[in-house]
């Protein structure tokens, strides 16, 4: 154990003070925080910029109900055609023009012309106002009074309440979108860390082999001790970096929230709809759900509502064992590689299960109880990612337990077999790896 400790300390100390490691520990959280903060910042800047929008209304009625919305200021342009307006568009100083054609009653379509990007909130707002007014007009035609329309106008909010198989309520506040975001992020982070640090083990083994240090080392320590010390050392370095990433990312995001967004950000409700919806603002989010900005908003809000203890402890478990499984495989492979140029061709086949799970992440998140998600979360080579993607949606305990047991067992088998290969491989130079050789090494003893 003492020798494993010595190797562990060396692996940690050498890597912890590497410039690239320190740089990535700082840049990683900055980049992650930037993904959250920058869209919000842009949104804030955008909100402060008033945009002038012209309305050319060929119906002479529908344009009247379009009121100023967020940072959009609407002006109805009288006595002009779209073609005339287009010719003088530059001189007019408008940022966009909403063209309501007279055939809107049959075509149900209007067009926004602009030289700038039109955000989804404006499209949703114009669409909502015109649809509502067209419906009103159609109903009025059918002799339904305004009062009746307002009385019967009943927006329906569809909520989801989670309960157990026994029918007991579970208090959950996080929406499915937020859960999906958390699942995606957790799975991607685990993929990145398992892959990044697994490959670091591979490179470490190759460095010792090609640098011809390994023979001196194995004359002092057992190959298993060398492999174990290296894997544990690099894994610890990875875990430290992960913790630094989480702490720094949260600090930066919260710091940015305090400094840049003193009031917790909530999307501005559509003015005309607010009254009728009352407190059920959820459907507003649905209107805007596909925008990048909303992804950031959801993420921002999700941070507040997640049970981070469960997520982090599961993350640490699946990270440790997922890493141990892949790191032991990488160590065995590294032991047979003589030079760096051969590395890539061996890395890809090993990481195919990881990449496959990443490709299927969308399916897992869309249907966390489906067959694909279920099987991938039990197969040890894919379970670290798949189970992390399923966890935010609620997974039966026995699923987690079974997945964890299979992973631990596979890890042990992988470590034992990898140690055998490692012991032989590190002393072989200039020999091609043949399946037959590997099998004969594994069968020996």
């Amino acid at each position, binding site marked *: 154990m003492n020798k494993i400790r010595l190797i562990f300390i060396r692996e940690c100390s050498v890597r912890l003070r590497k410039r690239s490691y320190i740089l990535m520990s700082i840049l990683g959280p900055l980049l992650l925080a930037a993904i959250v903060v920058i869209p919000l910042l842009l949104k804030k800047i955008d909100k402060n910029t008033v945009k002038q929008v012209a309305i050319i209304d060929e119906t002479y009625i529908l344009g009247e109900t379009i009121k100023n919305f967020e940072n959009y200021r609407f002006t109805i342009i009288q006595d002009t055609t779209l073609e005339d307006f287009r010719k003088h568009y530059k001189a007019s100083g408008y940022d966009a023009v909403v063209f309501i054609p007279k055939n809107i009653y049959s075509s149900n379509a209007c067009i926004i012309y602009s030289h700038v990007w039109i955000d989804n909130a404006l499209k949703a707002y114009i669409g909502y106002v015109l649809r509502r007014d067209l419906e009103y007009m159609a109903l009025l035609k059918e002799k339904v009074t305004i009062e009746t329309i307002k009385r019967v106008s009943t927006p329906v909010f569809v909520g989801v309440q989670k309960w157990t198989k026994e029918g007991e309520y579970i208090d959950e506040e996080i929406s499915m979108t937020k859960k999906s975001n958390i699942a995606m992020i957790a799975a991607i982070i685990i993929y990145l860390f398992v892959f990044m640090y697994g490959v670091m083990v591979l490179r470490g083994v190759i460095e010792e082999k090609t640098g*011809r240090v390994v*023979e*001196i080392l*194995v*004359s*002092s320590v057992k190959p298993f001790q060398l492999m174990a010390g290296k894997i544990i050392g690099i894994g610890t370095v990875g875990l430290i970096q992960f913790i630094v990433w989480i702490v720094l990312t949260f600090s930066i995001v919260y710091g940015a929230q305090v400094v840049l967004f003193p009031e917790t950000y909530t999307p501005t409700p559509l003015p005309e709809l607010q009254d009728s919806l009352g407190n059920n603002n959820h459907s507003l989010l649905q209107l805007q759900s596909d925008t990048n900005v909303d992804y950031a908003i959801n993420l921002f809000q999700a941070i507040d509502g997640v049970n981070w203890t469960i997520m982090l402890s599961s993350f640490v478990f699946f990270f440790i064992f997922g890493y141990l499984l892949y790191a032991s495989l990488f160590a065995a492979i590294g032991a047979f590689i003589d030079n760096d140029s051969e590395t890539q061709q061996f890395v890809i086949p090993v990481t195919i299960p990881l990449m496959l799970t990443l490709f299927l992440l969308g399916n897992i998140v869309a249907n966390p109880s489906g067959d694909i998600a279920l099987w991938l979360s039990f197969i040890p080579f894919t379970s670290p990612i798949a189970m992390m993607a399923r966890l935010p949606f609620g997974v039966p305990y026995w699923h987690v337990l079974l997945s964890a047991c299979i992973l631990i067992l596979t890890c042990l088998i992988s470590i034992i077999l990898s140690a055998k290969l490692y012991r032989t491989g590190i002393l072989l130079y200039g020999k091609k790896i043949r399946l037959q050789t590997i099998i004969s090494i594994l069968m020996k003893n």
Partner: protein
Amino acid sequence: MTGISIQNITKRFSHTVALNSVSLEIPQGSIYGLLGPNGAGKTTCIRILTQILQPDSGTITLYNKNLEPDDITKFGYLPEERGLYKQMYVGEQIMYFASLKGMSKIEAKQECNFWLQKFNIEQWKHKKAGELSKGMQQKIQFICAIIHKPEILILDEPFSGFDPINADIIKQEILQLKKLGTTIILSTHNMNSVEELCDSIALINASEKIIEGSVSAIKKQFAKNIYSITFSGYYDKFLATLTTSYKILEQIQNNGETTILIELTEEIPTNNLLTHIMTCGNIIDFSQIIPNMHDIFIDVVKNSQSTKLHE
């Protein structure tokens, strides 16, 4: 006294026999040369001694006790293919290898400083190994092998990469370690070093031990009856009255002195030969030609190969 005794060690790799029932007796406190052509099995033998590999059969005893895993700290090893961690500082690196051999941090630090000063390279302590010249790195590797004061030191081609001055420094250190009682196993192709340093040798060829013994005994064993004689007198009489059969390999006559290189095909006592020369003239110079290790090595390996071919 025997330090290490290797008895009938056999090691196979797949279908290749690397060592075939090899037995060696390595005297304690001596320098033991392990010789042989490339691929003979020397490195396998060394790896078994350092417990990197386990033999398929046979036993190894250290001071008459079976070699145990804990004995690993008694060994120092400088492999032929050696390197250092390029990104690690020299001092840190030496201390790391010392700690792996069981030295305490304080002890390792003291010894590290001692050796760096001794080799006059203490200014490199805080440099990365990758910044050093090859020769400098070799010195660091040598320090790493001996820092924990091993009882048995195995050196595989210790002089490769050294210039003559540094090679001499290392040579002196090896002799010094021997004086302190270290048993040294030296594997090298440099036969001059073998003659200069080794007390005894073993020659391995094609997985088998061919010869083993003290350097002087082996030289004597392979010495042929070739003499270099310089004398003034009656050369013809000397040859005519020589009772044993002979072959003149070389003959030079200069100012009444004759120098011959003569091989006697029958063994006769040296004194008889000297007496015979004295009856024919005055002896100026007389010596028996003893083969050097280089010649013995080539002879033995060639003979061994031709024997195998005939078999």
